[in-house]
Every structure is written in structure tokens, then in C-alpha cells.
């Protein structure tokens, strides 16, 4: 196999796929990237057996063929090479010679046959969604994914396709983020899947501003086709909790917040919350919120914010990190915070179908 390609293209191609390669792996082949040269395309593929990514770049193929090379090492080499044409030649023993200008590298690869193939796509349920829409929705939910490995069904985002809607849900038990997207599909295609965190992260990276992403859902896996790039992932098996139970029926108090002002104020005040008393208190009085935090033996912080609020006076405390997370990723100028009482969850909403349920902390 022999091909030549520009440094930029090869580097971009490697960067698309190399995140999947895990640093600690029991199978050496999994730290390699599969290179397949055919026609005028060089296809690069990586996998950790759970998630696999495959991308293609155009290259001048002199001799078609396939091999696998250590992904990180290859990427490190390519990154340091001068911006010029790179010529790669691999012999029958999977030894690759890389030439670029005056530089020469020889790295040892593994045979293509050892590389676990990405799952084949069959006639699955398929859905088409705008890339930007999906990326936006992932951004609005993914921070709420649970990192608690004992609750493995929560280590991902629920994609629930129902009634011409895709609902994305992430929760860790103390907060829950949810987004609805309009998607057209026949009733027979309705399905619930849980996409693992790693795939969600990769997907967020791969999705662009334009064009569509095509999802194909199968029994225990999902594939996202984004242009030439394919992301395939196993699904988390199990039933996602019935998240609707968490969403409060109706709010007693609603306050409209200027997102950035509020976010900055919470951020400042939270400097004086600590791991031990990790909460900020919101005290609502007429047309005013006071945000306060204090840590015994350290100090306290307070900040007032004028808002349009006419409800009853009360206070509620939240984990500052959990309160800020959705505010950081939302782009709306105004967000709504709905509450019932000091012990019931608060709900952050915006004009579009998004919802964030946040459990309050106990005010001691």
C-alpha cells in the first residue's frame, strides 16, 4: 500500500478518529488506527469495541491496500511534520515508512485482519436530523449525564423517538435536562435508545453547522452518518427511568432571569460556597433576588439582582454548579425559573422545548 496526502488533510482525518482510541487498552490492536486506501480515498477507522469512528479523506493512492498503525504515535508524528506532502508506504509486514521533506519515520503496524470491523448496518430504523439541531440538543443535555458507574443506564443520553418527536434526556438523579426535537418518522419506527456518554461526546465533536445527520438504530447499536464520517456505538442496555415522573406538574412561582447577569452573579457568589456547604441560597422578595452563600470559618458572599418578581417571599438553595451548568450552554437572553416551594424542585425553561429540573438543597 502506498499513498500520498497533504499534512493538513491527514492530521484532520486522524483528529476526527483518534479520540476513540483509549490510552489504556488490553488489546494492542485497539490503540491502532485502521488505514484503508482505495480509489482516491483514504479511510481511517478507530474503535474501542463500544464506540467506533470512521472518516475518509481524499488522497493520491498509488497502491491500494490496508493496514493498522498506532493511532496516537502516528498523529503525533504527523502533527510535527512540516506542511508538505506526506508519502506513506507500507510493506507486507505492516511496517510503514513515512516520508515528508527531509524527515523519515519507520513505524511498526499490525495486520488489517486483526482489526475488529465496525458493525454492519442493516435495514434499521433510520432518522434524519439537522446536524446543528442535534448538536445543540446534545449540548443542552449532556452535562446532566450521570458519572456514577453503578447506575449504568444513566451513563448516557436517552434518545426517545415518539410521536414525531425526538426527546433527549439526561439525568443524574439530582437534576434532569430534557430537549424535544421535531423529527418526521412513521409510527412503526418509534423507539427508545440510550446512547453512552463516550458516543455523545464524540458526536458533539463531529456534528457541524450544516447538513443532516442520519441515525440508524438497531437492536443493540446505533450509527450516526455525518457526511463521510460514521460513528457507530453500542447502546446501553436497560430501561431508562421514567423521567416524566420527575417533572413538576405546575409551578407556583415563576421568575424571568437575564441569563448572563444571573449566571455571573451565581458564579461570583459561589466562590464562597465550599465542598462541604455546596449551595447557594436564592432569596426571593418583591422584584429582587438575593443570591447568598456562606461557608463557616471561611466567609460569605451576597449579591442582589433586580428582577420582575411578584410572587410570595421565600428562599431556596441549589447546588451552584448544577444551577450554572444549563445557564452556560443556553444562548437565550432570558430564561425562566419555575418553583413550587423551598423543598420542591426548580425548573429552568426557555422559549423552545427545553427543560431542566433541579432538586433544591436543604436549607439548614
Amino acid at each position: 500500500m502506498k499513498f500520498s496526502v497533504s499534512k493538513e488533510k491527514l492530521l484532520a482525518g486522524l483528529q476526527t478518529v483518534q479520540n476513540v482510541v483509549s490510552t489504556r487498552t488490553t488489546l494492542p490492536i485497539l490503540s491502532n488506527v485502521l488505514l484503508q486506501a482505495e480509489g482516491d480515498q483514504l479511510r481511517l477507522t478507530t474503535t474501542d469495541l463500544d464506540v467506533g469512528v470512521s472518516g475518509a479523506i481524499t488522497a493520491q493512492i498509488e497502491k491500494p491496500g490496508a493496514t493498522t498503525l498506532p493511532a496516537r504515535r502516528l498523529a503525533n508524528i504527523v502533527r510535527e511534520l512540516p506542511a508538505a506532502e506526506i508519502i506513506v508506504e507500507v510493506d507486507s509486514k505492516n511496517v510503514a515508512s513515512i516520508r515528508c521533506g527531509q524527515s523519515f519515520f519507520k513505524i511498526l503496524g499490525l495486520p488489517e485482519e486483526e482489526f475488529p470491523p465496525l458493525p454492519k448496518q442493516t435495514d434499521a430504523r433510520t432518522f434524519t436530523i439537522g446536524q446543528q439541531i442535534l448538536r445543540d440538543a446534545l449540548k443542552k443535555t449532556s452535562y446532566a449525564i450521570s458519572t456514577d458507574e453503578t447506575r449504568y443506564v444513566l451513563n448516557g443520553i436517552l434518545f426517545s423517538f415518539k410521536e414525531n418527536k425526538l426527546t433527549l434526556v439526561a439525568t443524574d438523579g439530582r437534576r434532569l435536562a430534557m430537549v424535544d426535537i421535531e423529527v418526521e418518522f412513521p409510527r412503526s419506527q418509534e423507539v427508545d435508545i440510550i446512547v453512552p456518554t463516550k458516543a455523545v461526546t464524540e458526536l458533539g465533536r463531529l456534528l457541524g453547522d450544516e447538513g443532516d445527520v442520519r441515525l440508524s438504530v438497531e437492536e443493540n447499536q446505533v450509527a450516526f452518518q455525518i457526511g463521510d464520517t460514521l460513528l457507530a456505538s453500542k447502546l446501553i442496555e436497560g430501561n431508562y427511568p421514567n423521567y416524566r415522573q420527575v417533572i413538576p406538574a405546575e409551578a407556583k412561582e415563576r421568575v424571568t432571569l437575564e441569563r448572563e447577569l444571573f449566571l455571573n452573579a451565581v458564579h461570583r457568589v459561589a466562590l464562597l460556597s465550599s465542598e462541604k456547604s455546596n449551595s447557594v441560597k436564592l432569596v426571593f422578595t418583591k422584584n429582587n433576588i438575593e443570591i447568598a452563600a456562606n461557608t463557616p470559618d471561611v466567609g460569605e458572599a451576597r449579591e442582589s439582582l433586580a428582577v420582575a418578581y411578584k410572587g410570595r417571599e421565600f428562599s431556596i438553595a441549589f447546588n451552584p454548579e448544577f444551577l450554572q451548568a444549563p445557564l452556560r450552554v443556553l444562548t437565550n437572553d432570558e430564561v425562566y425559573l419555575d418553583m413550587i416551594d423551598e423543598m420542591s424542585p426548580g425548573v429552568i425553561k426557555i422559549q423552545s422545548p427545553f427543560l431542566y429540573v433541579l432538586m433544591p438543597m436543604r436549607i439548614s
Partner: protein
Amino acid sequence: MNALWAEIAAQIQTEVSADSYDRWFRDIEPVELDEKTLTLRVPNNIYQLWIESNYQTQLRSVVMMALSSAREIKYVFPDETAPARPGKVRALVPKTKPEPVETKMPVAGTNGFNPRNDFDAFVIGPNNQFAHAACKAVSEMPARTYNPLFIYGGVGLGKTHLMHAIGHAIVAKRKQIKVVYITSEAFTNEFIDAIQNNTLIKFRKRYRQADVLLIDDIQFLADKGRTQEEFFHTFNTLFDGHKQIVLSSDRPPSEIANLETRLVSRFEWGLTAELQAPDTETRVAILRKKAQSVDIKVDDAILQFLAERIRTNVRRLEGALMRVASYVSLNNGRAPGLEKIEHLLRDILSEEARRAITIDQIQRRVAEHFDVRLADMTSKRRPANIAFPRQIAMYLARELTKTSLNEIGEAFGGRDHGTVLHAHRLVKDRMIKDERTRQIVGFLDSQLTR
């Protein structure tokens, strides 16, 4: 076990918001309880997730309080519980025992009767014979015999048990009869809600169309003017319609402060029955019954010891028994010696010792402190140097003993309960205003309870 859960649920209700309770705890059913774990059945996995993430600490501490020792809490969902696990695990309540009300009433609902509280489980002694007989009569012929029936007695003597038993017995006999059981506190809350949400008609319908109305802890109606008025009309409607009304309180109607006289007189209209603290024999009998019902074996010597040392409160008595029982089970069935028990129950026992103070002791101690004659405590003379110590003694008698106002009055030379009440109030006032009085009373209190 359902009863136990009802207790736990009621406690949780005070710890979390109403909305959270409805959302997460109302649908829980207890499945199993053993020495290490409490298994709860929840509708699906979101319950486990949310409760574990948000209410774990509260739930654990409430369970620990209720069972006197910590349990690991496990959750099961309906499809997982289908094959009942056989094994050493035993249910707290024998499974063969029929629990007729349970299916009809929600376990922790406001009109749910605790299935453990039926007449069979009630231990009768000379202290409660009369009240028990009156309740039995009411349950056999509602609204025919004693209407209204007013039961009163101290904490943990069985008022609620008798109320529930009446409810059970009536519902068991005639299913279509409408029994409403509520605490006066819940009644007040519902009334306030009804005013707020303009649902007074619905509220009235609920109570005024009851065939049997059981209201627990009526003393909490004190100071609640509008609720009292509402209750007054409810009372009249029911009474005129020949419906049974049963009320319970921790004191006789005349001693409930700030209760309208028209209500007091109505409460005294029917039969007033007092529950007194059980004597030692009755207490032993209660402990035996309890031990039997939860299927634990405890030495007679231990039961006797508990019965002798814990006098005032059946609930506490049973709590002490459960604590001993859990000690036994944690020590592989080895029964603790009396010394060990004394240590195990030190908090309860010292509290009890405090309760064992007699009026006589108080009078002696106070007379000694003020250097007046003991006879002056009961004499009719009332110069200030005698009257004030006497009032302090009355105050202490009211605070430190469980005796009723009348009895205290009696012990102070045949004074009536008004005098005692006046003395109590006066001393209390002085304590707020006067540092010295506060010191004296505090000193005497600590001397007496040491």
C-alpha cells in the same frame, strides 16, 4: 409491617414537601424487613434513583428512628418481586393475619387506619377498661349509645389505637358505611386549603356526609377560631343527623385552653372516658402481646424489668422492647443481662426517672427551699411568703408530673383546677420577667429531676 411503614411514611411526610411526598413516597409499599435491610416496592426504577439521590439521608434516619437501628434500604420494582423469595426472612406481621382495611384504604393516607391497631391487639387493664368498653360499644352500634364519645389520656396510652380500632370494626362489619378518620391538625389544614382554593363545599361534603367521624388530637383545635367554628357546624350537622362522632385529646375538654365553651359543652355532652397509664401487670401483658405479634422471644425477667422501669407511655415501652429485641438479634440471639439493658435503654430510663417524681416530693423540696412548713403547702393561709412557694410547687407539679390539674389541686389542700392553672401561668410569667424566679425554679427543677 404496613403499620410500621405507615409510621415511617408519616414521619417522612414531615420531612419533605407535600408535592415530593405525593410524587415519591405515596406509592411505596414495604415488602420485607429483616435485621439488616428494609425492602421497599416502588412502581419503577425512577423512584429508586430519585429517592436514593435526594431523600436517602432523610429516609434512613426516619427508618432508624422507627426501628431503633439502621437498615440498608433496598428497592424492588413490580416485575422483579413476582417470585417471592423464600428464606429466613420473616415479616414483622404474620402473613396469615387478615387485614381487611388495608386494601381499601391507602396505608399512609389521612383516612387510612393502621391495620395493627384493632381491638384484638389492645391490651385491656383496669386503667383503660372503661374507655375500651365504650369504644367497643360505639363500634357495635354507632351513634346509638355514646355520642359523642370523648377519649382522653396522656401520650402513648392508646387513644389513636382505640380510634383506629373503632374504624376497623365498623368498616369490617358494614363496608358501605362512610368512616372518616382525621387528626384535627389535618382537618385544620384541609380547611385552610379549602378556603384558599374555594372548595369549601367539597370540604363540607366530605365531613358532613360521614356516617362516623373520628377526630384525633382535638386539642390542636385550640387557638384556631375559624376552624373551631367550622368544626362546630360539622359537629352539629352530624350530631343532628344521628351520626357517630368520636374525639380524642390529651386532656379533658374543660382543660383544653382556648377552646370555645360551646364546643367544650358539646364535647362533654356524650361520654367522656379517660385512659390512664397502665399498671405493672398490664404493662407486662402489653409487652408479651407485642413480643408475640412481632415474633420475638424475650425473657420474662426482661419484660418484668421493662414494665417496672417504664411506666408512663406504652409507645416508649414498645420502643424499649424493640431495642432489646434488635440487640438480641444482632448478638446472635444472646439475651442481654439486666445491666446491659440498663445501658441500652439509659436515655429512656433516665427520662422515665424524671417522670416518676411525685407531688409529695415536690412539696417537700419546695417547702425546704423556701423554709416554710410542709403543712403550709396544703393550708388555706395565703400570705405572700407562703402563697408564692406554693404556686411554684404547683407549677413544678404540673411540669414534672403527669397528674391532672384537678389532682394537683387536690394534693394542695383541695384547691380547684383553676387555682393550679392560675399558679402555673403566674409562675411562668414571672419566670419570663424575673431572673431570680427563673433561677429558683430552674434550681428546684434540677434538684428534683436529678
